[in-house]
């Protein structure tokens, strides 16, 4: 299979995963006890639950992939010549954001 076909298939698979991840993350943040103040201690406690850790780290990786791959598809639609350059730049942006964001996740997981 060509790379573009893989990009299409993984975009669909990540979409299904994101329906679950975004639903849980957004639901907990905004619909369960919506006026509660978010604190470091509560967030750390929440993320030590394996399911929440999977949801939030999954959102970081899968969400970034889905979003940036979507941007790539839009760029290619309007500006096909930039395909390769866009792919390189968006890959670097995605890996950087994923690396940067995971340092926060580890801080929460290592907090006492």
């Amino acid at each position, binding site marked *: 299979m060509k790379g573009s076909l893989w990009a299409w298939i993984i975009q*669909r698979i990540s*979409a*299904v995963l*994101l*329906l679950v991840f*975004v*639903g849980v993350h*957004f639901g907990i943040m*905004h*619909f369960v006890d*919506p*006026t509660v*103040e*978010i*604190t*470091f*201690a509560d*967030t750390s406690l929440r993320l030590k639950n394996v399911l929440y850790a999977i949801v939030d780290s999954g959102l*970081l990786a899968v*969400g*970034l992939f889905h*979003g*940036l791959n*979507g*941007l790539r598809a*839009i760029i290619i*639609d*309007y500006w*096909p*010549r930039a395909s390769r350059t866009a792919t390189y730049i968006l890959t670097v*942006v995605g890996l950087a*954001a994923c690396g*940067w*964001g995971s*340092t*926060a996740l580890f*801080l*929460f997981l290592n*907090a006492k």
Partner: protein
Amino acid sequence: MALNKGGYTAKKAKCCQMNREVRVYADLKPRYFRTGMWSHLLHRVSGIAITFFLLLHIWEVTSVTRGGSAGFDRTMAGLSSKLFVIGEWFLFLAITFHGINGVRLMLHDLGWGVRKQKALFWTVFGLCAVLIAAGSYYFIMRFLAYPWAAAH
């Protein structure tokens, strides 16, 4: 510029070596818009908005978290203002539409309901309206509970 049955213009692709006629689905002239075009445009605009929000969100939360727990609590308290509730409500609109319309697109990809896509677009629209109306209750509660500018 030839006009085909679907209402889209056909242009010569300059990028390809084959130089063949291709359908341009991303034509931005509103007179060619059907429900499918609106759904396509809304899906893209909401997708771009959510992606930029995600990058901002990762940058912001990580920076604040790395600054320590006291700073984290202070910043999160500072974000409890009416202004941010409005922003979150728009994010809620975007992800609700993008998610539900995305399900419709994936069903079409599997070959399901392609002939009923106009009806399904309005089904998506109706589902979004119901979900947004229900979810907005919580946003209104928070909007009323928070001050315009939270104390840091």
